């Protein structure tokens, strides 16, 4: 056995064990602190820790969470993120509502929305896989997708009759839990299982960890980019369908400024993925984290609403959370990054 000196993680000369432990478990300690602070606030806010409120929190997290799970696949595989998510959702929601308004029924309408998502996601993934920068490609795609959605619908609201067979998703519930929440939980579970237990999931992590090594061992980003972009887009479709089901209508700008208090759905989703601690460079993280991150952000936002804050402070605090967590993760991971 060679006398190999492994483990750069052992404390160097002069470092106390406390600092060493901090460096090794920094991420988990940070998360634990956040949890504690949060619990402190939770206990002191009126009406916060009620079953109803908790269900509200999770339901509010659902839409952002589902998109976040889809985006996580893209991020984990080292393809950064997509700036075209809310526009994909816009096109899907128009597709769905148009189909519903023609009485094609839920299944066909859903299939239509998913098909649109897969095509637009696939095309973006194709460009990215061939070397296009994800930010630039999706920025351009966003403009195009939104344009198509608006043009197709003449920028008008499309409504479909109630009752319809999409209502179960939008407003229905099982045993007191909203169906949208159940969908979120099911997708979260499936996504985590896929990442952890399938060879596809393993490929996502490998390509994200080191694209060149992935190529050398037979896993190419060319096809992976297409797959993860499709997954992310399909999640956008699901969210679009769920939202449309809630409103029994659709308009191209539903996911734009007016959606949520933060004014930018795409940014909120990206923020969720990052606050949850997924590495932007890929190869580290999980959809479970993202799901918890979505719930966490929703929980904080909910608390602020209950405490009477307007949208300004709420957006501000989400922004603060994002920036803060970015800085902390950057500090914790500073050893793992090369120069620049």
């Amino acid at each position: 056995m060679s006398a190999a000196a492994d483990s750069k993680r052992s404390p160097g000369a002069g470092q106390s064990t406390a600092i060493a432990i901090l460096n090794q478990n920094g991420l988990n300690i940070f998360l634990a602190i956040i949890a504690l602070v949060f619990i402190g606030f939770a206990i002191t806010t009126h009406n916060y820790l009620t079953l109803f409120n908790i269900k509200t929190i999770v339901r509010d997290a659902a839409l952002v969470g589902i998109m976040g799970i889809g985006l996580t696949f893209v991020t984990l595989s080292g393809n950064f993120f997509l700036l075209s998510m809310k526009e994909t959702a816009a096109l899907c929601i128009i597709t769905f509502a148009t189909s519903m308004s023609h009485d094609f029924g839920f299944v066909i309408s859903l299939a239509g929305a998913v098909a649109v998502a897969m095509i637009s996601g696939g095309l973006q993934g194709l460009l990215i896989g061939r070397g296009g920068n994800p930010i630039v490609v999706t920025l351009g795609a966003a403009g195009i997708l939104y344009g198509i959605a608006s043009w197709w619908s003449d920028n008008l609201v499309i409504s479909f009759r109630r009752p319809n067979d999409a209502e179960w998703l939008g407003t229905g519930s099982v045993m007191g839990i909203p169906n949208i929440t159940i969908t979120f939980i099911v997708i979260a579970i499936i996504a985590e299982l896929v990442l952890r237990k399938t060879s596809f999931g393993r490929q996502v992590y490998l390509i994200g960890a080191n694209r060149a090594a992935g190529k050398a061992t037979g896993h190419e980003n060319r096809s992976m980019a297409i797959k993860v972009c499709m997954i992310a887009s399909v999640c956008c479709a699901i969210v679009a369908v769920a939202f449309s089901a809630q409103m029994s209508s659709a308009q191209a700008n539903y996911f734009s400024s007016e959606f949520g208090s933060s004014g930018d759905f795409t940014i909120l989703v990206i923020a969720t993925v990052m606050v949850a601690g997924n590495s932007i460079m890929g190869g580290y993280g999980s959809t479970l984290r993202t799901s918890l991150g979505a719930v966490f952000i929703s929980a904080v936002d909910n608390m602020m609403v209950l405490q009477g804050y307007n949208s300004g402070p709420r957006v501000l605090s989400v922004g603060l959370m994002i920036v803060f967590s970015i800085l902390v993760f950057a500090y914790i991971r500073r050893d793992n990054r090369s120069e620049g």
Partner: protein
Amino acid sequence: MTNAPWLELKGIQRHFGSIKALKGVDIQINRGEVLGLVGENGAGKSTLMKIMSGFDSGFTGEVFVDGRAVELGSPNKAQALGIAIAQQELSLIPTLSVAENIFLGGNHGPTIASLSTLSKLARPFLDEVGLNDIDPKMRVHRLSVGESHLVEVARLVAHNPQLLILDEPTAALSETDSERILNMVNRLKENGKSVIYVSHRLDEIFKIADRVTVLRDGASQATKQASELDVPNLVTLMLGRELSDMFPPKNLQRQGTTAYTFSDLWPDGLLSPITFNVKNGEILGLAGQLGSGAGEILAAIAGSHPVRGGQITDMSSGQSFLPKSSKVAITYGIAYCSPDRKHDGLFLGRPISENLTSPNLKRISDKGIINNSKSDRVSADIAESFTIDPNRLPHEASVLSGGNQQKVALGKWLSINPGLMLVDEPTRGVDVGARAEIYQKLAELAESGVSIIIASTDLLEISELPSRVLTFYKGALTSELEGSKVNTENILKEITKPESFLQLAGEAS
């Protein structure tokens, strides 16, 4: 001018945990002198140079500049003392011009100046390194590799150092460009500067050095006048008798059947198509310096390097193919380890077990779902076979030492049960203990029937491990050595000053 050396390092030791990279190095260099520094892989050359240029301050020992004791705490300090180093990897900015690159970083250039002004200021430095015909306004990406290296040195010269350390300056260069580098070194010497010239190219060392210091196994072995040495002596000093125990005995008796033939293979960089074969259970060596074609052939077989044509035939199945990518090569049972494991040989942030199973996910999964017991078995088997501590399997690969990392980079290929294993630089950056284990394992693999082709610039390795060696020089095959003809002397000659070019012989007559 005093008799004391300009730079002296005494009793330098550097440990990394339990690995002793440098065990005791003494080295001096005088003004107006060229000192050659030689040693094989793992001897400690890079570690020593990092220390001398201030990039590594974790050593013990004394440093004197011009007789005064000094602290080489940081690269800036070293630069201030007059020590400059030109690394193997260029640090020029391709999108900027030559003149801009020369004045980049540091305070030796004007803050506000037009490109013309910078060009005028850069001229003397360019002349000093022999680039009289280069327009300083030209963008660096337009230069040849050799010219870029010279510009890199010009940049160092602009800081007016006393000592320049050149690390493998001609490794990737053509004959003409190498000559320019050597001329430049002479010019610097005439101007009273000191140069430490680190190189594997022993012929150049003899052309240029006044004295030569040999590093072996982390200690300075000897320092002699170049005039007192010749190549065989030097090689002996570098390699030492006892190190031959590192290598398992060669299986020279084996009369194997041909396993793979390579017909008219023409990778970019080779002067003309090459035809050769490898037998079952044989370890074939491709010897040659960087850019000679040896490494290019390996990469080309694996589909990682552009080719102009050629065919690979698997004699057992009769199939002929030419892989266009690693993915395709793997389906034919061909495994390829590049010389740069950090770049594409390892998934540093992932657990070692995942690294070991990465080339063959099909084997550890059923219908797309990973089967943990299969996965555990495969990684445990490979770990045992390459003497990697099985307790470490769940840890990230980044925690391993260089030697263990190389074992993972090599070992993972066992998961595809390769018929042909291609390894470029099997022990670069690997300590002596791990080297022996890797050689042992490669011999065992060959024993079990796998064909292995290795390429290496390390003389000892390429003469002791393979039973047959093809030698290359500047893109041409120069000889084929077998049996007792495979020794360091022959190989060195054929890769630096061949008398004939086997590959071109037919065309020439």
